[in-house]
């Protein structure tokens, strides 16, 4: 028997000798409609089905729903499998089950639903980031966020990335400070901006910078001239550190585009 690749932990291995047993079960189910045989087959291949449901559509859909769809795929595979062809059932069942899940994803609007779920999670990560920041006086690590929210570190990393893309979220609204006082960033801009006029700037870049809103200019200067951390900037401007990060990246991108265009 050739070696086959399978994850030891995923529970998808079939016990040796199971093949011949299941051939008999298939005959009993497909020819005689023996419900007991069908149940035995379902029990035997449920680990495979569960493994596929878990691998596919990672953590973005309630697992029970995925398992239900995958199980439906298993039942179809049990009906359609042709044991006489001599191929093991698993090689037939895997594409059938995956096909069922993909059809479900298409039909249920999953492709739209998932980004929305990711967006909600990104907001949760942002809020947790702020809470932990306020509590400890410094930004948390990814591990601390994952532990706090009881999610995978990978999900946190995805959220940190995703949050940069959400222009439509109300990320730009002024946020209350730790002491509960809301800060209107406009109030803080004028004075600081004047001070920075003293910094001598390259003429082209000064012109280019003029295209950025005052707050973005202020944040750029706080980070790159004053050398404040993003957390310190967030505190002073009254927005979240993640928003500072987003604004910095976006502003630098705009500056690059404008400079190259000029």
């Amino acid at each position: 028997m050739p070696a086959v690749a399978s994850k030891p932990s995923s529970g998808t291995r079939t016990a040796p000798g199971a093949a011949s047993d299941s051939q008999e079960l298939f005959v009993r189910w497909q020819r005689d409609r023996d419900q007991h045989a069908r149940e035995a087959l379902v029990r035997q291949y449920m680990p495979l089905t569960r493994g596929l449901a878990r691998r596919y559509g990672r953590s973005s859909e309630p697992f029970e729903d995925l398992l239900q769809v995958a199980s439906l795929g298993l039942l179809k595979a049990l009906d359609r499998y042709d044991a006489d062809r001599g191929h093991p059932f698993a090689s037939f069942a895997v594409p059938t089950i995956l096909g069922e899940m993909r059809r479900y994803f298409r039909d249920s609007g999953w492709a739209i639903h998932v980004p929305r779920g990711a967006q909600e999670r990104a907001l949760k990560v942002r809020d947790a980031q702020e809470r932990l920041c306020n509590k400890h006086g410094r930004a948390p690590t990814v591990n601390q966020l994952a532990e706090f929210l009881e999610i995978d570190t990978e999900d946190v990393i995805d959220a940190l990335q995703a949050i940069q893309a959400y222009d439509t979220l109300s990320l730009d609204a002024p946020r209350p400070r730790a002491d509960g006082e809301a800060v209107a960033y406009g109030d803080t801009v004028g004075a600081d901006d004047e001070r920075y006029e003293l910094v001598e700037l390259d003429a082209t870049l000064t012109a280019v910078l003029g295209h950025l809103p005052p707050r973005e200019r202020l944040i750029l200067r706080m980070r790159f001239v004053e050398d404040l951390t993003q957390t310190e900037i967030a505190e002073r401007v009254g927005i979240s550190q993640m928003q500072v990060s987003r604004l910095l990246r976006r502003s630098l991108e705009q500056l690059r585009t404008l400079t190259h265009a000029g």
Partner: protein
Amino acid sequence: MAEIPNVHLSLPSRPENVLIVRQALSGVATCLALDAIESNDLNTAVTEACNNVVMHAYGEQEGALEVDVYALSDGVAVVVRDHGKGMPVAGLHGEERHQPGIGLAVIDALARRVEFARTPAGGTELRMEFDVPNASALEPIAGEGLETFAAARAGLTGAVELRLAPNAMARAVLPRVLSALAARAYFTTDRISDVQIVADVLAANAGESIRGTHLNVGVTVAPRKLELLIGPLLTGRGESLMTAAADGSAPVIERLTDAQRVAPFESAETLELHLADHR
């Protein structure tokens, strides 16, 4: 003309590095504007291939896990390679086709085309192609590039190595990969954001900075510390990358990194950047 990958990753074959590959793929998916289902298929299949390498290619040992990404006119191809003793590949070829391991059956079901090959050294290469109906065009990669690859390889090593063609895919992939590595180095979100900005600058300026076809980035990860070795760069470009300005008075990379060093490398140069999280 030899096919040149847009993205090449080389990592130690450890389970945690599959996450790095997945982050790179999420950049690929964003760049190619894949929908959630296409992206999920790509991710699931490549994850299976990588898990296979991690668990089987080198026995109890550790070796290189290599991933190449090619942008095709109507899709994307991903090659997952090891230099091990040859992993079990039953199920993809010949009379064994119908004895697949579950991982390979998943790949077979999700990719439009799967090819398997032995590398000259006896390792295994699995090439998977996926449909991307509305593949957005990437800037073509100029030149043959493979020689530069080999030359660069001799001088640039890190725990994780990336080679990126200087186009939109690099701009989507590099920040994601470096953030994931920064997260592994226990960086705070504050400092991870800085890493993203550094990656943005490197990827955006790569086209005019590199000697050859690809930006090579070797990354070494230690607790609260990341070291990047970047090259080969055209002579003088290390300095200009480092001082690429945010607003004329403030060099972005110089501000955001803790140490920088430009060193000669063959007829070019390398830029070494150290980032720490002091919190």
